[in-house]
């Protein structure tokens, strides 16, 4: 029964329209005149409307860089990014920039650092509205902000307070309110719950899920907590050293991982079971020891959605 439902839902997901398409994204940072850091190297993926795409990988894998390149906090070195059928990569014209800021928003990791401490909550949330002239008068502006604050579980009186007067979980809700007030198509959530306590994490994740159901939001969810990523995501991309080593629906990644890096990540997830957890062995993955070269691997599709980056010989050995 459960399995049937699940396969139905994946079918359903496949039919949804593609909101974000990233093709051959490369983000290089020059170190000096001879060296570049290839933070993201030839990454392609699609995100469908109303779904959540989880990006996982260790620190330095390039998962945050992908998010930042898509929203154009960085200028991508190469590749095309298409949002709702409109290309947003390349030279950032006025027109493109307006489109970007109204259709894509970001929630940052540290809710203290990402909110201006000198501004009141109402002004923080309304900043996007101000910049894009999305209201007729002060009253409409206020109403829009109040409505959004209510949605994330804050009340009107709190709108005139400053960020330091809120707890971490509340601050992150302000961050979410600021993102959804623009009614974006896509929200990039960069480690948005990592800095919060466990009980507060659950509150924030529930709000994000509710908003997705209500408003049909699409999330690009960047995190390193794999249990949470599994819980919230529909599709998952596993990144290592700037390459997508494996990508698929969450069932494919968690029940049938193929790439040894994915296996190693999965083996490291601590589980709340004191008896089995005690003796669990970590699957060690050392790329150099195994002689894996990501630039030599090609994309193998095991199913239309399940991709593994490997050479033919490697794939035969792993699968």
């Amino acid at each position, binding site marked *: 029964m*459960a399995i049937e439902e699940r396969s139905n839902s994946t079918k359903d997901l496949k039919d949804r329209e593609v909101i974000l398409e990233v093709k051959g994204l490369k983000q290089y940072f020059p170190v000096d005149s001879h060296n570049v850091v290839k933070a993201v190297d030839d990454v392609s993926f699609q995100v469908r409307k109303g779904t959540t795409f989880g990006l996982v990988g*260790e*620190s330095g894998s390039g998962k945050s860089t992908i998010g930042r390149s898509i929203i154009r906090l960085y200028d991508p070195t190469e590749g095309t990014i298409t949002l709702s059928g409109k290309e947003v990569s390349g030279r950032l014209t006025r027109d493109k920039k307006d489109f970007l800021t109204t259709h894509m928003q970001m929630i940052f990791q540290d809710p203290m650092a990402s909110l201006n401490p000198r501004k009141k909550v109402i002004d923080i949330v309304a900043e996007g509205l101000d910049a894009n002239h999305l209201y007729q008068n002060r009253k409409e502006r206020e109403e829009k902000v109040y409505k959004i604050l209510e949605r994330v579980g804050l009340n009107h009186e709190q709108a005139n307070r400053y960020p330091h007067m809120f*707890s*971490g*979980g*509340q601050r992150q809700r302000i961050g979410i309110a600021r993102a959804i007030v623009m009614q974006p198509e896509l929200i990039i959530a960069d480690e948005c719950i990592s800095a919060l*306590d*466990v*009980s*507060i*994490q*659950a*509150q924030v*994740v*529930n709000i994000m*899920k509710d908003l997705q159901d209500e408003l049909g939001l699409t999330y690009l969810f960047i995190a*390193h*907590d*794999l*249990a*949470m990523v*599994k*819980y919230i995501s529909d599709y998952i991309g596993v990144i290592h050293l700037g390459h997508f080593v494996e990508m698929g629906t969450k069932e494919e990644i*968690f029940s049938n991982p193929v790439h040894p890096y994915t296996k*190693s*990540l999965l*083996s*490291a*997830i*601590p*589980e*709340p*079971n*004191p*008896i*089995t*957890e*005690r003796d*669990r062995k*970590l699957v060690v*993955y050392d790329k150099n020891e195994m002689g894996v070269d990501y630039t030599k691997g090609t994309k193998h599709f095991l199913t239309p959605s399940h991709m593994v980056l490997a050479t033919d010989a490697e794939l035969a050995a792993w699968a």
Partner: protein
Amino acid sequence: MNQKNSNSSSVEWSKEDVVLDVKDVHISFATSAGTLNAIRGVNFTLHKGETVAIVGESGSGKSVTVKSVMGIRSSNQKINHGEILYTYEEHGKKKTVDLLKFSKREMIANYNGKHIAMVFQDPMTALNPLLTIGAQVIEGMVLHLGMSKEEAWKKGEELLAEVGIPNPALTMKNYPHQLSGGMRQRIVIAIAIACNPDVLICDEPTTALDVTIQARILDLIKKIQKDRNISVIYITHDLGVVAKVADYVCVMYAGKIVERGTAYEMYFEPRHPYTWGLLLAMPDLNTTDERLYAIPGTPPNLLRKLVGDAFAPRNRYALNIDYEEEPPVYVLSDTHMVSSWLEHKDAPKVEMPESLQMRINRMKKEVGAYGN
């Protein structure tokens, strides 16, 4: 060594094995906004070679508790009540001292680093960026053990090898920024164990690290603990980490331990609604529920006087008496204690949330499969 039942549901300890006995400690801070009662009566014991994990949200007082064990005190801190008895061997004789009686200076001179050592959360801020790794590793040995620098340097290289640093001789001459986060945390551990402490306190040792590195660091701490037979206190809010390392778990809320027991009791027979909430708020890999079980609200402001059970406003199982009187401690087994009115004989029978019961049943099944 301790006799331990393999199922760890009953742990037998002899009285002589107690290394650290924390008894009814109350600590407050004088702030500009008034007195903040950070710790409101904490009790726990730590036995030789065992691991105790203290779990709780930020602001629950877990860090203040272990810092008082380390003698790290701020100037506005006041110890109102209680004692921390530390038992150790000196010249073949057992000695018991109350750590709260010592001044900060006495603690630094005699106990910190030498008998009780700490691994901090962020390995970058715990290390001095201006000194080489070697200089920082040998510091404690020169100070506490009276070694010469050459001797300590040699010992330092052995320590780095013990914590799994590939090229110890070279790494001793490196600076912290030349190492990765996981390697830096290994250095911090090497510094902590340099003087052969009896007690190792790990304050969120893996929160700043990646999952794969986290598992390796935890394995390393476990190995060191076994090799040297030391006792470890973990502070963390990650219940997955606790499951991996702890023999004994204390759940703290608003400056009190609301439930404590063996790891088995905590994960398979939790009784306090807060423990239920903590366990359920963290999705495991099988969680498919539409919504996560979130504990509503936020922890109480400890500047205010708390009436009744501090957790009552966030507790969906709260009884009327929870708002009036603080619950007493109910002893469920030799090791399992819970502070909740729900255990009172006249209280209505409340079962844990269904999804938690299902998860526990599933875990028990896994254990069954695992045993065979």
